[in-house]
């Protein structure tokens, strides 16, 4: 609740409730969709920031808006969703013209990449969204080209791969071997960390994906290279008033994902903490 340790930058623009319209929905495979909205006022945001997303058609159920990383900002903000429950199911069924509200931009973005450092991104599933935007930001700012390690269960769980390839060096791992290396993405990370070690490079890891993946990535980085994660927790409000999004700290107490995160230094987080329902 107080000014806590975060790795995130302080880039900030005014948060607002944007009434937008769904312009386009593109299905990717069976479970993923990119939703692109039309916003009267541009949303000014940096990679890693998110929006609380809700369709005006929901009425009183589903009740709460859903936190979604921004895949792009501006006048046509977009998100990448994976269908996991009622809210995402409805988003995946919505048609152009549907009125939505986006409360954005929210949260802390990824921190700046330190000079002369090789950025290594580790993405799992929809976790690719804030990392693709970061890679695009780097590309347009003439920054270093990141190495992206991208994992999924199958070749169908690697949404936006082509866009990612346009702005980064991508290596792939799938659990069933249907694309890239067979196995988990952490296998790729192990090799990548060895490489940078061999070349005596500075590196920094940015990761977003399933909790277990991020915990494994954080463990592998610990003591070797800095690692920043974008955490996912249930959220009530997205702007710091419900206190529903705590992330346990190693030092005790909590950080709040919506205001102090979602992008956080991995070493600050108590990864051993059991999640309810998990």
């Amino acid at each position, binding site marked *: 609740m107080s000014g806590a340790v975060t790795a995130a930058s302080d880039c900030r623009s005014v948060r607002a409730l944007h009434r937008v319209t769904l312009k386009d929905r593109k299905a990717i495979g069976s479970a993923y969709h990119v939703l692109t909205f039309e916003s009267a006022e541009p949303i000014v945001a940096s990679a890693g920031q998110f929006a609380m997303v809700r369709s005006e058609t929901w009425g009183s159920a*589903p*009740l709460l808006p859903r936190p979604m990383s921004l895949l792009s900002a501006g006048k046509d903000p977009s998100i990448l969703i994976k269908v996991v429950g009622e809210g995402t199911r409805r988003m995946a069924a919505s048609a152009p013209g549907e009125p939505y509200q986006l409360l954005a931009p929210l949260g802390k973005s990824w921190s700046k990449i330190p000079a002369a450092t090789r950025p290594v991104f580790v993405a799992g599933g929809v976790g690719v969204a804030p990392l693709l935007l970061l890679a695009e930001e780097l590309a347009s700012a003439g920054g270093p080209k990141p190495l992206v390690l991208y994992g999924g269960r199958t070749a169908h769980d690697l949404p936006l791969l082509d866009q990612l390839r346009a702005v980064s060096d991508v290596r792939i791992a799938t659990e069933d071997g249907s694309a890239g290396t067979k196995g988990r993405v952490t296998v790729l990370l192990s090799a990548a960390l060895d490489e940078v070690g061999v070349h005596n490079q500075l590196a920094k890891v940015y990761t977003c994906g399933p909790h277990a993946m991020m915990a494994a990535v954080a463990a592998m980085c610990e003591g070797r290279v800095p690692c920043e994660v974008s955490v996912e927790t249930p959220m009530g409000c997205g702007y710091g*008033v419900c206190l529903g*999004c705590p992330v346990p700290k190693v030092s005790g107490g*909590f950080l709040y994902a919506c205001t102090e995160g979602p992008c956080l230094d991995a070493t600050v987080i108590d990864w051993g903490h059991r999640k309810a*329902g*998990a």
Partner: protein
Amino acid sequence: MSVDLAVDVGSLRLKNPVLTASGTFGYALEYDDFFDVSVLGGICTKGLSILPRAGNNPDRIAETSAGMLNAIGLANVGVEAFCTEKLPNLRARGVTVIANIFATTVPDFVALAERLDREEGVAAVELNVSCPNVDKGGIEFGVDPVAAGRVTAAVRKATKLPVWVKMSPEAGDLKGVGIACQEAGADALTAINTIRGLSIDVRTWRPRIFNKTGGLSGPAIKPIALRMVWELSRAVKIPVIGIGGIATAEDAIEMMLAGATAVQVGTASFVDPLASKKVLDGLGAYCAERNIAARDLIGRFIQT
């Protein structure tokens, strides 16, 4: 708006009856990007305790049909930090501040009230004797007329501020609790706090929130809250402030017709940070259209 929206909660005049509910509006400073919160009738702070509290382990919230469960565990900055870090800013913004306080013993409730009594810019204290989400204290006071009366009387003696007592929907004898608080000197009753509920993940067979049970809030509970406010307001002479599932101006009007002198907007602020302002604007329009004052709605539910 030329329409008269002012209401009197005992000796405290509010410029309008739309407040925000404790725990759903932070310390109100979080709204600077969204709107000027001083337009509201008032704001209730997150529940304040003597020492800062970190709160419960995650997960703390889960959604249910037209509602949500929460077990935040009264995470808060502590009364001292509130007085030094938050209150001066609220005062500067001209916000009517109701300090919601929480303790597990009567002396601690008294200490909190005394501390707040020393500050300028606190309009009332609201005793949370009805929090379902902490191991110790809270709700035990709220479900028992004798205990509720005891803590109210003690706080009443300790402060010049108006004392509001927040009712638990789990009291078997809600009217009895209300009357006991009235007799102990409460200036108003606020009702209702959340109703304890449970949600289990059928994939993992585990509770959806760490604390197992959590308090249910949101539109789902509105009819229950409305009934309780109606019953309470007929049983006591002091004002009742209505809370529970209010999301629109119509909801607020319904609550006032049932007997509420003012209302608090809670969970709706999560759905839309501007919810309380929209409720206020809608209430103004409703009163203007009918050429009535807001106070003309209080308890005017036609029961014949």
